[in-house]
């Protein structure tokens, strides 16, 4: 207790030194600073206080108080605190200093705020990140005066892939048989060595944040959030529900939190098994791919038994869950897990003994620890480079404080380390599910009556299979006022440039696949329609990262 007080005092002291104000709510520290001191505050938080940068959120608060605002979300992993650094911006001339010199991981989210809200960042070179290049200037979709179904007139532009004489160019995507989702990598190769990489994503941006803020109610957004991703959907919907419950200070029944944790772990097992299959397929070991997905089928059947659907579970509501786990289902779960563990261990032993798999995965796609820290990477990518970071243990949510588990950390930082981290995590997830099923308390699973006051802020980080997923909610009237989603792949893709440089071309697909990219989570923008027809986004000359 005394130690906690000391930490919180330090944050209040920091805000006073900078010249702002601080307030504490639960496990969130709100620090509001004037615009000029933003970089200093961010740099202090990142370096001195060793906070982990997660995302920055731009908000149009003009209907509320006449300003724009930008909130930088940090988490203090060692003390389990969320630190929100906020500043207000004049609406007539929205300029704010950029923090990327102090915190390099803030690059993308600042550009997203610039594209979608029109906030200019001084002290850096801007570029268009999220919106397509033909998008009209001055039209910022997330501003409150732009209706959600407004369609601008756009003419598509197609450009040629640049060909230089010094290096060859290998374009991967947006339509490529190796990829499962549209993304565009331009690899510059000399012979068989990759010398540079350009990335352009955001081809599947669907306007989810705008939808959640305009035409959905609180309970309906759960189902929308689940469909942000096809593999890790449940953790998005849990994260949203937890964020709103934190903002409204709702007392969710314990049994519901246990059920949420159990289903989250089931999702983690299915996601890692999927990734293992894909990794084996990329390495040419199709037999491993087929067998891993065969045992994954049992997990999908289990998920269907527990929740009603193989993937988009649809059991999360604000205030709890909709479906209960009775004694019969609990026994079935334990039986399935036991069989699964035996088969899984045998299969992984065989698969990792194939010489090609071992040789190709080790020593390739190395991400050194310093780069990983600078870019604030998430999840197994970070844990394979020696960073001990796991939101289930550092910022405990749902029922994780009742389970004891190990967080696997490897230090080599190559593809094999990322593979082994995920292999270990599956075993740990099975142990967590068994522990939670043992300890689950009796009681209701859904809050009957609750009220959500307006104007409250809730932030929640949930450890998705790919890393920490952040949801930021400002409550409004009947629906969220601002909802920001940051998927873990968002932070991991800029690390690809470091991993792919000076590596042989043959390792590129495995390296790209090893961060477990989930591009549906990363992009959340609009599909451009032209006069009712569908038009695909054309390529531009690549984007500087």
């Amino acid at each position, binding site marked *: 207790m005394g130690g906690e007080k000391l930490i919180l005092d330090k944050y209040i002291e920091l805000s006073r030194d900078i010249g702002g104000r601080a307030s504490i709510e639960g496990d969130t520290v709100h620090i509001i600073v004037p615009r000029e001191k933003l970089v200093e505050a961010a740099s202090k938080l990142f370096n001195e206080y060793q906070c982990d940068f997660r995302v920055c959120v731009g908000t149009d608060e003009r209907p509320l108080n006449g300003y724009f605002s930008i909130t930088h979300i940090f988490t203090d992993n060692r003390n389990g605190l969320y630190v929100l650094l906020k500043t207000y911006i004049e609406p007539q001339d929205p300029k704010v200093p950029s923090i990327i010199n102090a915190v390099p991981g803030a690059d993308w989210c600042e550009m997203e705020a610039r594209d979608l809200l029109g906030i200019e960042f001084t002290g850096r070179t801007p570029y268009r990140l999220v919106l397509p290049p033909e998008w009209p200037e001055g039209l910022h979709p997330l501003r409150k005066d732009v209706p959600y179904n407004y369609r601008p007139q756009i003419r598509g532009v197609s450009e040629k892939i640049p060909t230089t004489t010094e290096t060859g160019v290998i374009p991967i995507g947006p339509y490529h048989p190796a990829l499962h989702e549209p993304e565009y990598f331009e690899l510059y190769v000399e012979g068989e060595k990759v010398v540079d990489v350009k990335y352009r994503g955001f081809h599947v941006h669907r306007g989810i944040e705008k939808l959640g803020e305009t035409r959905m109610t609180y309970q*309906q957004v759960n189902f929308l959030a689940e469909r942000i991703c096809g593999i890790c959907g449940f953790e998005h919907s849990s994260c949203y529900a937890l964020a709103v419950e934190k903002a409204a200070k709702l007392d969710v029944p314990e049994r519901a939190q246990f059920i949420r944790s159990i289903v989250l772990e089931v999702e983690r097992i299915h996601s890692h098994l999927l990734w293992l299959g894909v990794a084996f397929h990329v390495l040419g070991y199709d037999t491993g791919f087929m067998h891993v997905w065969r045992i994954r089928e049992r997990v999908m059947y289990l998920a269907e038994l527990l929740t009603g659907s193989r993937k988009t579970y649809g059991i999360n509501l604000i205030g709890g869950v909709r479906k209960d786990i009775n004694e019969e289902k609990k026994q079935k779960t334990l039986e399935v897990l036991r069989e699964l563990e035996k088969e899984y261990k045998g299969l992984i032993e065989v698969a990792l003994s194939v010489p090609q798999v071992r040789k190709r995965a080790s020593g390739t796609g190395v991400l050194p620890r310093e780069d990983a820290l600078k870019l604030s990477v998430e999840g197994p990518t970070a844990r394979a480079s020696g960073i001990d970071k796991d939101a289930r243990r550092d910022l405990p949510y749902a029922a994780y404080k009742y389970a004891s588990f190990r967080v696997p950390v490897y230090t080599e930082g190559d593809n094999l380390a990322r593979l082994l981290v995920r292999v270990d995590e599956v075993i740990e997830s099975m142990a967590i599910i068994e522990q939670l099923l043992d300890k689950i308390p009796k009681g209701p699973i859904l809050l009957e009556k609750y009220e959500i006051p307006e104007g409250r802020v809730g932030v929640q980080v949930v450890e998705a299979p790919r890393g920490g997923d952040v949801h930021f909610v400002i409550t409004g009237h009947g629906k969220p006022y601002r909802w920001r989603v940051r998927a873990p792949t968002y932070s991991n893709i800029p690390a690809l440039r470091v991993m792919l440089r000076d590596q042989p071309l043959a390792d590129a697909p495995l390296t790209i696949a090893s961060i477990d990219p989930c591009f549906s989570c990363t992009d959340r923008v609009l599909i451009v329609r032209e006069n009712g027809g569908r038009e695909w986004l054309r390529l531009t000359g690549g984007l500087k990262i």
Partner: protein
Amino acid sequence: MSFVKKIIKPVEVLVVASKTGRVTIKYPFEEPWISPEFRGKIEIDPAKCIGCGACVNACPPNALEMIESEDKKTLRYFVGRCIFCWRCIDVCPVGAIKGTRNFELATNDPLDLYDYIVHTRVKCRECNRVTGETTRMLKYVLEKAPVTENYNNKCPDCRKKTFINALSMRRTGPVGEKT
């Protein structure tokens, strides 16, 4: 010896394969492998539905819509938008919606995808305009909370007028008379 073991290990996958057999199901010639809890299409019982619109409010993708016309209110269920979340079943006050395990819904005729339930609207006895209610909604309310004849066939405006009249009669005489 361990070198030989290292060579032999990948061959163990043959053992694994022979133990598991073939797992492919020859769907659609065999039954699909779905659990008893699977959520499929919903079916609305036209006899029970009262046309209250609670399901329309709760439906996330707007697969259920209420279409209002002069004298009818139609509940339309469009399978094309349904995400099979079964929220409508949760919120229906009379339990008129039933969930099935049917997911094989492909068809050549797009009109097959729409289900319609038509309700007649109640006309106000006094001013003869339609209220927001349907006849069945009225019956449902009357069963739960009996209301006198004076109020139950009127639109909200006429109801207000009747109430004010009755109140004023009881206290100070007709409205507009100063005492």
